[in-house]
């Protein structure tokens, strides 16, 4: 990666979660790994998330969700990303997403799910190793 280039990551919380401790831990870890992290706070709608990703021209989106609404919200987010022609953005997710839903989420286009107990090093490593190549 060229010297002036930075990896831009959007950490987003779709839905009605009431706290963002985990999301902030990940955000800070990615910042300390040299990335520019845009964090938009609680209660984001799919439209807000995708519009933010577009305006901020991010390379990566990390979705954090604890409420169990991933099966409703993630398909909407992925659809909006396609509609906005943002399919080259890498999307990963974390929070409370049951094992049995992981395959379904990956089928939507979410590259990896990081459940509770995942180390921040793992996430950092994953982002660095799988960064989408932009021309």
């Amino acid at each position: 990666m060229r010297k002036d280039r930075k990896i831009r990551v959007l950490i987003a919380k779709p839905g009605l979660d009431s706290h963002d401790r985990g999301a902030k831990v990940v955000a800070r870890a990615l910042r300390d790994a040299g990335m520019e992290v845009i964090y938009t706070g609680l209660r984001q709608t799919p439209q807000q998330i995708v519009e933010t990703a577009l305006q901020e021209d991010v390379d990566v989106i990390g979705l954090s969700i604890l409420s169990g609404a991933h099966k409703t919200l993630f398909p909407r987010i992925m659809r909006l990303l396609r509609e906005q022609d943002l399919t080259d953005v890498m999307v990963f997710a974390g929070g409370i997403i049951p094992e049995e839903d992981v395959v379904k989420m990956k089928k939507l286009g979410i590259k990896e799910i990081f459940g509770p107990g995942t180390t921040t090093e793992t996430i950092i490593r994953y982002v660095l190793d799988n960064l989408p190549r932009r021309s």
Partner: protein
Amino acid sequence: MTKTEELAKGVLAGNRRSVARAITTIENNDPEAQELIARIYAHTGKAHIIGLTGAGGAGKSTLIEKIVKEYRRRGRTVGVVAVDPTSPFTGGAFLGDRIRMQELCTDEGVFIRSMATRNYAGGIARATKDAVKVLDAAGKDVVIVETVGAGQSEVEIIKVAQTIVVVHAPGLGDEIQAIKAGVMEIADIFVVNKADRENANKAVIDIQSNLQMNNKEIPWKPPVLKTIALTGEGILELVDKIEEHRCFLEGDLECRRVSLRTKAEAELIDAIRERVTGSLIEKLKKEGKFDALVHEIMEKKTDPTSAAEKLLKKAVHDAEA
């Protein structure tokens, strides 16, 4: 059509994706950046550029959200560039200004971009200036640049703006000290936010008396306004004042012409400086003496200034040969 041509076209058409990509090109200092700016430059100069600065915790982002909403109410489109510091140790940045502005996210008339200072060699000013040009060329009526008001580079960025608003909040520290020199002198409008707090009136008086200490006759006397950004109190008056300042700038044709000329001259000098420094250092590094001199500096056999003199003398000598 080349990719850069296409990108420029998209910017001029106000396409959000193009605007976003264009700003990335500028941030990354891609080789296309220069051509991009060249292609859109003729279309800049229409937007009213507002700089908003002040210590962290003064309520700038919340204030901006309200200001943008008021401009939207008046039928104007707005671009926002929110600047946050890059860590000099990790190179990373936490860009959280959008948190307070997310309601504006899905308004098509608003474009918000978070930028990190990235410790650019030439200072953050160049990248921010060019990002503002993109938003200007894309047709935004108003562009607001938000920074933390501390340090030299913030004063730099703020020179991008035509109207500079300095935001203060009571309780952030000793009132007069809290507004640093430099920032104090360039403000066109002062705002005491969180005006429901104790000492708000004292803050207003402190700022006003500080201003009176500059006895020069000035055509624009910076007003000191009170706002409560959270409730929206004082926002109407603030936007009215900003508009008043804009009219003042445009109405006084001579003043405007002089200010445009000074700005253009400063931009040219900056651009020359950047180009010369960049290519000169590259050239000096390639010649053998550079590394040897670095070692001499490390061993305290010479000092940096003398070493630089040596290198430059040789370069000039070679150039004239």
